[in-house]
């Protein structure tokens, strides 16, 4: 039985991979690829094999929309000297950003939700981040539903996985069913891709297989968190001793949690000058609320203790983010706790507070 109206199709895995490799000759294609012992989102090259069954990547592909370092402007300078001093002024200033077409293929649903979170941060409200917007507009995103679940993943609790069941923000949603892919285009660009490489229309049997696969993956989750009342719980327990206990016992202040988090958006801005001061580059780069000086001003540091900084991270992700942007700042990917050298776990913190545990 063929569902003519479904708009859903089936693609052969090898056809899809070949399509991306061909595409990579004309534009940058980021895909989950084996690099040494890990799966990493990297630039696809001709001999690469795309990993469709991958688990967690250390870094999320959101970094191709909000890069770790980005030039704001490049300038040629003139040096203005006076009798006792000199200043440098920009003579010729040019924006650093040139948008290029790119594809992010194989992004997991929770990371796609992280993109939607960053959209709210950078595109909603009074100020639009144009560099982010232009990257976003020039990016085709293909979501790959999860086939496996790792220990620290709790995206099911956060409503962001393991399958992408929203329709906004991306172009195509894929579900791996054996050696075929169920392809659900959700944009004109996605429809265009499917039109080129589809092998047949999806049947109700394929849709049933999708449901069964989703149930199978959902059943693999070991980690969960109660999100009802979570923002209030965290906000009402800002003086809880757990912040101090965990921070002082275990937090090394390494900033790993914020570097691997797919929704962390904080940045610093810095100027770099050539040694003869003839050129200046102003760039922004990822910052971390776990850095000692993140909230420092002249005369004081508003989060001088590790406890205050840990509390800021957890409170922001699970509580105040909701008031700011109408969604959680946590998508449940589990990266922060996995890459924490001492496995500090924000879900455990929330659960301990909920239980009224006095550590």
């Amino acid at each position, binding site marked *: 039985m063929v569902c003519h109206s479904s708009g859903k199709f089936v693609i052969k895995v090898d056809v899809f991979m070949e399509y991306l490799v061909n595409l990579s000759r004309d534009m940058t294609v980021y895909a989950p690829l084996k690099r040494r012992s890990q799966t990493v989102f990297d630039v696809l090259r001709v001999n690469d094999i795309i990993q469709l069954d991958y688990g967690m990547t250390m870094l999320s592909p959101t970094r191709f929309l909000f890069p770790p370092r980005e030039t*704001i*402007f490049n*300038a040629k*300078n003139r040096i*203005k000297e*006076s009798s006792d*001093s000199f*200043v*440098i*002024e*920009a003579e010729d*200033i040019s*924006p650093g*950003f040139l948008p290029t077409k790119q594809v992010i293929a194989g992004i997991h649903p929770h990371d796609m939700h992280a993109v939607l979170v960053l959209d709210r*941060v*950078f595109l909603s*409200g*009074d*100020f*639009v*981040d*144009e*560099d982010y917007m232009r990257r976003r507009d020039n990016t085709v995103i293909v979501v790959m539903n999860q086939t496996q679940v790792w220990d620290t993943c709790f995206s099911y609790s956060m409503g962001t996985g393991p399958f992408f069941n929203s329709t906004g923000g991306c172009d195509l949603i894929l579900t791996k069913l054996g050696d075929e892919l169920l392809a659900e285009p959700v944009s004109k660009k996605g429809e265009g891709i499917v039109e080129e490489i589809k092998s047949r229309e999806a049947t109700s049997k394929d849709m049933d297989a999708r449901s069964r696969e989703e149930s199978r993956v959902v059943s693999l989750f070991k980690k969960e968190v109660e999100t009802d009342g979570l923002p209030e719980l965290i*906000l009402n327990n*800002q003086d809880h001793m757990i912040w101090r206990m965990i921070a002082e016992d275990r937090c090394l202040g390494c900033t790993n949690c914020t570097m691997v988090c797919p929704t962390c*958006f*904080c*940045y*610093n*801005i*810095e*100027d770099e*000058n050539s040694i003869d*001061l003839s050129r*200046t580059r*102003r760039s*922004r780069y990822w*910052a971390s*609320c776990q850095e000692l*000086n*993140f*909230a*420092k*001003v*002249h*005369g004081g540091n*508003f*989060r001088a203790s590790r406890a*205050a900084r840990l*509390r*800021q991270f957890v*409170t*922001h992700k699970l509580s*105040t*983010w909701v*008031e*700011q942007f109408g969604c959680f700042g946590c998508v449940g990917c589990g990266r922060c706790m996995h890459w924490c050298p001492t496995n500090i776990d924000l879900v455990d913190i929330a659960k301990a507070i909920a239980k009224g545990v006095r550590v």
Partner: protein
Amino acid sequence: MSLLMPRRATVVDIKKETRDVSTYLFQMIDDEPFSFKAGQFNMIGLHGIGEAPISFSSNLLDANSFAHTIRFVGNVTELIRRLKPGDTVQVRGPYGSGWPIELMDGRDVIVVAGGIGMAPLRPVVHELVERKKTEGRFYILYGARTQDDLLYKDEIREWKGKCGVRVLIAVDEEIGDMDLVDEVGVVTALVKNVDINFKEAICLMCGPEIMMRFVARDLILRGVAPSSIHVSLERRMYCGIGHCGHCQIGAKFVCKDGPVFKYNDIKRFSDTLL
């Protein structure tokens, strides 16, 4: 064009206020219109060095010009000290909320400042001195380390003479001239000399958070509504537009939701001394 791309302004005039504070008169170089509210701020940048958030210390003056009163305490401001008239700075802004000038009509007003905290309040005082005259009672409570450390001493003498404006000054130490000083001690000690209708009054305050905490407590005990106390806060900032994350206090971005907050809106969060 990215919002992080700065415009440029020329240093038109520099007035030394104290040993480590000067007021700079800037004029935008391009002809694009520029306007702002008292209480907002600019990111003032030095090319090759960086940017710092600094409040306007004047209202809009002729031909796209405005003042910033700057204390030389950081990487950027220490080098601003070296600028001479004719040099240029980078400007992004105006950013942030302003003082609620519209809420002051017909009410008794208390302006409370500590140290450099007088700078963002100066345009409000200018506005009130010009506009209000005797409409409601108007107090300025201003604390500094010594009389020498007071900003705008000439203007304070003028304000003291204007009818309807009562300026009370507290200093920490009895050093040097004392002719402007009413009290040796903290600003809080001046509140007892304030004779207004506290229940209907509005307070605008900027200074060290610990000062604002105690003044707010005192005012609330005397009947001022917490929502009628407006505080201007300082935080580390890189962007000024709610993206870089550094200035967050709970769910608030000081740069775009503030820097002026109603006391009760901001006091509910951690990591302040309020």
